[in-house]
């Protein structure tokens, strides 16, 4: 049992990052970006290109990938969210438009990098280190560490920086924030850009676990979204907890019950959580105001 929990940690850290990116956009701008999973895919491909093809090194791969994907995220805010806000379109239109963006990004990636899965090994060993009956690879340790590091930096940014404070204000009460002179257009932009960059890191981290493919975004995006909702959509600590929780549940369900039904178990759990605790497992219940 402990073995499966340990195995669930690296994927859990990745889910946590993706969950964070969904939650962050939802909290700051009140919408969902359905192309968030494709930011993960794009991050993995750009990281792969910088590290494996251009040979510019492992650390630069992270920064270049984050920057490039952030620009794509801001582009989505600028060319999709902004016009939709201006025309007062219903929320479902944002969903369809970002799904449209997801289709475009996925197929552009297919044109650029081709249909074959790419291998993206990390510069650390993939040999398991044994501790009694348990074992973990240095690669997994690195994935979890980078994930946690990014979460800490992100939390620090939200709490301490001026931009972070503005974002939290908008998340709490968009209308009041406007009255206080906060530029909500700017906060939309920061939310989309930062979330995309977080997604990019998740993409690089997942690359050595799975192969990099043009359609990897849909699956990881959904799992990240599920994690966010199970943990508490819109909350940073809730999303992180949700990510690790789903990662561990998947690992245990896949190992102990059935690998074929693994995802079905995750989704059943999701529906149960939504039914019994719609605000997520790790948040206090809130009542709807009239």
């Amino acid at each position, binding site marked *: 049992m402990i073995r499966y929990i340990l195995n669930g940690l690296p994927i859990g850290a990745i889910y946590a990052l993706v969950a964070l990116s969904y939650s962050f956009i939802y909290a700051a701008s009140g919408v969902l970006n359905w192309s968030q999973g494709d930011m993960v895919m794009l991050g993995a491909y750009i990281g792969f290109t910088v590290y494996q093809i251009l040979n510019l090194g492992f650390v630069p791969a992270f920064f270049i990938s984050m920057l490039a994907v952030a620009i794509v995220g801001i582009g989505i805010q600028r060319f999709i969210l902004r016009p939709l806000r201006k025309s007062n379109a219903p929320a479902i239109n944002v969903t369809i438009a970002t799904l449209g963006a997801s289709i*475009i990004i996925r197929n552009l990636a297919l*044109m650029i990098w081709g249909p074959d899965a790419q291998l993206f090994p990390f510069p650390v060993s993939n040999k398991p280190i044994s501790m009694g009956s348990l074992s973990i690879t240095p690669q997994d340790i690195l994935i979890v560490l980078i994930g946690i590091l990014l979460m800490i930096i992100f939390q620090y940014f939200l709490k301490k920086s001026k931009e972070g404070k503005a974002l939290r204000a908008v998340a709490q009460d968009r209308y009041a924030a406007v009255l206080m002179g906060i530029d909500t257009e700017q906060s939309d932009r920061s939310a989309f850009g930062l979330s995309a960059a977080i997604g990019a890191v998740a993409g690089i981290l997942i690359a050595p676990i799975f192969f990099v493919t043009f359609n990897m975004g849909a699956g990881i995006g959904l799992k990240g979204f599920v994690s966010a909702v199970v943990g508490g959509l819109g909350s940073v600590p809730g999303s992180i907890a949700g990510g690790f929780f789903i990662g561990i549940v998947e690992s245990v369900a896949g190992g102990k019950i059935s690998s074929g039904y693994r995802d079905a178990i995750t989704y059943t759990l999701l529906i149960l959580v939504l039914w019994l605790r719609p605000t997520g497992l790790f948040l206090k219940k809130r009542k709807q105001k009239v």
Partner: protein
Amino acid sequence: MNKNKKIYLLIILVLLLTLPLFVSNLYYLHIINLVGIYTLVTIGLNILSGYTGQTSMGQAGFFAVGTYVTSLMMMNFDLPFFLALLIGVILTSIFGLIISIPAMKLSGPYLVLATVGFGEIVRLVLLNWTPVTKGAAGLTGIPFPEIFGLQIKTEKQFYYFIIIFVILGIYIAGRIAKSKIGRTFSAIREDDLAAEAMGVNVAGYKTAAFVISAMFAGLAGGLFGTFSGVTSPDSFTFDDSISFLCMSVIGGNKTIIGAVVGAFVLTVLSEALRVFQGTRLIIYGFILIFTVIYMPNGLVGIIENLKSKILMKKENKSME
């Protein structure tokens, strides 16, 4: 209904019934038949999302249940098509009833994700329950329907077969929309708390909307299985649910006719774009984005805007 409207309806009906005489290309007829099946799914979705304000991104799940149950009833128990279809529709409705239990309390992204989860669970069960569903390989040799000893098997026969269901579906959905139930659905969409305060049984009506949408998807699924002859879990993915949602929103989800327009335009568009091969889906994505930004109420919304503009002009003239 005024006289003009009756004449228009008659013309449309005659056109629909004589359509196969003009369309000799079997491929085109095949696409039109698919449009008919997708129209039924989209009608259900419009009642759920356009009328009641509940979004489903798992409609492919209901569609799949309808397809598999109807097909398996015919294959394993030698049931006639109509009986198999009835069982398929009833079972799909039961699924709609079950999913409405958690869905009743949910809205926005939570409801969306719950329906996504439902759709994925159905697909994964179809994929893994191999003894019954044949797993990833899917079902082959689904029998053709038979009415009064006549087997429906050519594209033309299927056209008439499907069009009857579509016309009936539009008629029934139209009746529901105009009835007290339809108006209550709209009241719930506009403000469910206010509706509740006025004494509306919101939970009951939300459940009804889910069951109706599931019935339409199940009916469409039953037709889809026998029409295709083969089926596999690949036809019922998250992407298929999204595509149904796009049909509903792009056609215009606040009217029944919007479902017909949406199913027609998107199915024909995605076929027509095949000439672009690799860039096909990229263009498709751009069209989706463009439509929801510049036509926020769908294609039918645009037509209605134009209509009211023309009417206003006429009125202005008569006033002068």
